[in-house]
């Protein structure tokens, strides 16, 4: 039950932070966009939250469902 709640909370945080206001906080400005490791920060942001959400789904699918 605790694991179920934990995964749900992480997934919801990813859903709100990923496409939500979090994206606007890390992208920099249009004059000086953030570039991390040679890659636009916003692209890495999309990939990161996608991986977080998929990890939650895999964890739920393999242990809870």
């Amino acid at each position, binding site marked *: 039950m605790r694991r179920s709640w934990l995964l749900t909370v992480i997934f919801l945080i990813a859903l709100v932070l990923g496409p939500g206001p979090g*994206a606007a906080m890390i992208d920099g*400005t249009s004059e000086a966009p953030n570039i991390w490791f040679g890659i*636009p920060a916003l692209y890495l942001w999309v*990939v990161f939250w*996608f991986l977080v959400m998929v990890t939650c789904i*895999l964890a739920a699918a393999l242990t809870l*469902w």
Partner: protein
Amino acid sequence: MEGLRLESFGSGFLATTEAPLSLGTWPYIVLAFYLVGLLSLGVISLLRSRRATNAETDYYLAGRGQGVIVTSLTIMATFFSSFAILTFPGWIYEGGIAPMLYALNLPVAAVAIYLLGNRIRRIGRKRGYITPADMVTDYYGDSPALRIIIALTGALYVIPYVVIQIKGGGLLADGLFQEIEHVSIFGWQITMEDAGVAALSLVTMIYVIIGGMRSVAWTDVMQGIILLSAMVLSGVAVIYALEGPSNFFARVSSELDGSLLTVPDPGDTNPHNVWKILTFCAFASLASIIQPAQWMRFYAARDSKTLRRAAIAFSTILPVCFIFGVFLVGLGGRVLYQPEMIDGVVHLPDGSKTDQVLIHVIQDYFPEMFGTIGLVLVSLILVAVMAASMSTADSNLHAVSAIVTRDLYHPYRKKSSERERTWIGRLVIIMATIAAATITFAGKDLRGLLDTITAFFFLAMAFSAQLVPITFDMIFLRRGSRRGAIAGLAAGLLTVCLFPPLGQLLLGGEGWVLKGTTTLKGLLDVGLCGIIVNVAVFILVSFFSPRPEKSHREAFARDLKEVS
């Protein structure tokens, strides 16, 4: 040198591209193999269905026995249309990285496939449901008003999709065979676009009629594999064009304007702001997963394990094809092709619409990468775009048939046999296909009707989203009443109708309501706006009207959880 022109209907507009590439006879060969493949799958599924004892369940749900590969790919192929392969890269070419955030709706949809879909499958098998209305009316109590409004909600989603996708298929056929001006059939001259609409409608209609869900799902497997491969290969092509991943990102980071690498603020003219994207990810994903065609795929799944694995496949394969495939095409395309501003709108350098960027990339770099095989692959991807249209059209055509037969015909002819209803369903498919093709053929003469259908198409997902509150109530809460469900659904649908472009048709061009909904549409997902009104009315009316009997609710809850 033969030219190739591709016209797409990716997002409701028409684009024209002149590309100096000769594909020779490859498009004909690839298209012929593709269409023969579709019809063969239809015939094989017909032969399989002859062994069935339960005609209706077999025709509409493939005997509730679909395995994991078929279920996964048919859900995916139904989920996206040519929008995924044309419009999305075009959005990124135009708006930069921000539209990529929409991809985060895919894991949400994947969770819904299991958490909602498996419960729907379980009780559907237990109680013999075929359409969404079967489940809703069984729980809340059957009434003509409830059945009709559920059927209407489904129809508002599926009918515009059938018409628009068939029209899109015709336009793509026209682009594929640009050198042919007219086709003569029995001395009657028709344009290539009309011939494309006729041929694709006919092929789709034949395999849906003869094989039902089984042939729709099997052809979805074929179409899904072609489409997913095309999405990934086009990403490979653009990375090749920019000389490897590190050089790709170095050039994207240094050459693109900063506004393309950041998220626009809410209220900016760019529609892809964070609140719009967030609400889309949370609610449009649910809407597209509980639309009638997908709902029937849950009923059709063999068991719980099938949907669990389908959810995993959906959450991993599809986002990878987007994030590392077509998204990179839009981003790299912006580096490769300097945009041209025409009337304040971004276009490709040759003046074509931005949704042609993927076509440009594959035409320019596949032959260089793969030689002769590159020409075959270009033809295959052009056919894949058509496949994307057809895989959405066939699923919705099949769903229309089920809705009309089960939700409208059966309640008024309760003594009708399964065999009779299945044949009525086939008749509905013929009539719906002819109607959709006729509207497309007579596009210029029926401009008003086609515009209206297009307006409904742009709000189709918002209409489908209005099923979310009652679905959650049935599956998790069980506190609503039948009157509440009807009132909430009606209020939600009416709210969605006030948003543009439909609001402009209903209310005229002016008025404070339309100004308000236009502003709101720029900030939030339209489906969510409808859901807010829907839920408020649902709760209010349910508070003053009787819920289903306690014993009925408990039995329903038991069947939702029970092993089946």
